[in-house]
């Protein structure tokens, strides 16, 4: 039987993590159907249909799914579940919210945040902030899985799946959407960025963070990340947090500035291809994972780095 993959999107564009989660879904062996649940999301479904190897795209287009609240979305997925062996989603806020609800309704123990498909019923997943990797075998007839997308490559385009409209399922009627504040940004998304410039507690203030980190990111066309300490101190917004309980990223280049490198932060970025660390404390643990370390004061290093990078990029 087939695998159902929950698409991540904002009603207008398909999020790139979907193509990465598709790698994991495809590795399960069965045909893959993608579910796009949203409002006015036909464009998203068309984009999903172009992903290579997708057999079918299901489009549930209804106001009920405009913000992908867990209660109605879980009801929809559970209604579709009899046709599938596995239900898969990327480890995004939406899927992390809804899929455990789906799993419990199906009496399935979800396998969270897999980093490798060993066999259709056997997976690797990190535990203890990535300090150990568990290989687990699921005995449930149906699998419910979230995918750590930083661990999988994106499937490219080249497909031409059919898009099938499916009806909404009755709203359990226990929750309503009130409001959403999404920061508009021209920078790439953290989980999709090739380069991430990340700042820590050493920045000292929200103003310094904005003055030093953000322009450097813009020279590189990079996304901006932050350590938990910087977010807790109010220097950067919540959704910039990289780490065990924030975003897990694996860009080509991760530049950690004034970040000491707590275990919980390393858990979120140590799979990056190249790591650069700048810290004035030469004993900082971040240097143990950095390919290139520079001991120095970020207040002087960052402007210099920005100038040199601008020069190097011509």
């Amino acid at each position, binding site marked *: 039987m087939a695998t159902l993959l929950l698409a991540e999107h904002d009603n207008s564009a398909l999020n790139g993590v979907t193509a990465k989660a598709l790698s994991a879904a495809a590795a399960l062996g069965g045909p893959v159907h993608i579910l796009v649940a949203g409002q006015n999301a036909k464009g998203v479904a068309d984009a999903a249909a172009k992903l290579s190897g997708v057999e079918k795209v299901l489009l549930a287009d209804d106001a009920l799914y405009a913000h992908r609240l867990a*209660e109605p979305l879980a009801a929809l997925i559970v209604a579709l579940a009899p046709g599938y062996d596995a239900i898969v989603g990327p480890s995004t806020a939406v899927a992390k919210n809804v899929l*455990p609800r789906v799993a419990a309704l199906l009496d399935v123990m979800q396998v969270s945040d897999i980093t490798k498909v060993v066999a259709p019923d056997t997976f690797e997943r990190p535990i203890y902030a990535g300090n150990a990797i*568990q290989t687990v075998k699921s005995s449930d007839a149906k699998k419910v899985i979230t995918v750590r997308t930083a661990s999988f490559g994106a499937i490219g385009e080249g497909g031409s799946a059919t898009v099938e409209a499916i009806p909404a399922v009755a709203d359990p009627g226990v929750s309503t959407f009130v409001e959403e504040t999404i920061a508009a940004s021209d920078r790439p998304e953290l989980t999709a960025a090739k380069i991430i410039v990340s700042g820590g507690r050493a920045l000292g203030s929200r103003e310094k963070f904005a003055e030093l980190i953000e322009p450097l990111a813009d020279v590189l066309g990079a996304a901006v990340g932050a350590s938990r300490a910087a977010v807790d101190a109010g220097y950067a917004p919540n959704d910039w947090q990289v780490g065990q309980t924030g975003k897990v990223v694996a860009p080509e280049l991760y530049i950690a500035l004034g970040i000491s490198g707590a275990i919980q932060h390393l858990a979120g970025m140590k799979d990056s291809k190249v790591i650069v660390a700048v810290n004035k404390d030469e004993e900082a643990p971040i240097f143990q994972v950095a390919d290139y370390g520079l001991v120095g004061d970020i207040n002087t290093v960052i402007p210099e780095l920005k100038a040199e990078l601008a020069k190097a990029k011509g």
Partner: protein
Amino acid sequence: MKILVPVKRVVDYNVKVRVKSDGSGVELANVKMSMNPFDEIAVEEALRLKEAGKATEVIAVSIGPAQASETLRTALAMGADRGILVKVDGVVEPLAVAKILKGVVGEEAPGLVILGKQAIDDDCNQTGQMLAALLGWPQGTFASKVVVEDGGVAVTREIDGGLQTVKLNGPAIVTTDLRLNEPRYASLPNIMKAKKKPIAEKTPADYGVDVAPRLTVLSTAEPAGRKAGVKVGSVAELVAKLKDEAGVI
């Protein structure tokens, strides 16, 4: 309104865990254990709601070995009114925990259950959502703000790219994110007082729950290591290496 707060005993967040050499798991002997940090935030939120007159009683529940009673005592020392220990040895997966909690909810009839969004040992991030599913209740996960209103609760959630506020009707599940509050420390007098607060003992069988795991752990391994690289002497050298050696800019 009663508030139920499940708390989990986990390896302290400052401990760097070691994988056992035979690959059977991680070393837990003689390791410092504490309350899961997200659960401390859950206890704190429940206490603040009680202090604001929105709740009448805060009940902490822990599912785990006999030593989990220490975790309950921590919650009681923070200010929870009483505890329930559902004693079980070995691993209890989130699905089984949710089933047991459903039984506890059936007996206690709380208006709100506040849980940590994930435990820092298995990093599953499932229990709250599963409990909501089993009860047919709405869920406000990854909460950064909780406002109890007439007939329900408004929860502001940390989502990708920003914040989302949802209104949940009737009894509801909330799971906590880091920025919801800063948990209090228990004072010495409160630690002493907590010793006299009641803890009821239960077993999974009391709730008719089979805790047999659905996932078999085949092995536990060290993650692929990452070696420290080189220290560079200047920004110019760094940029040259990024360009010529690493080829990433």
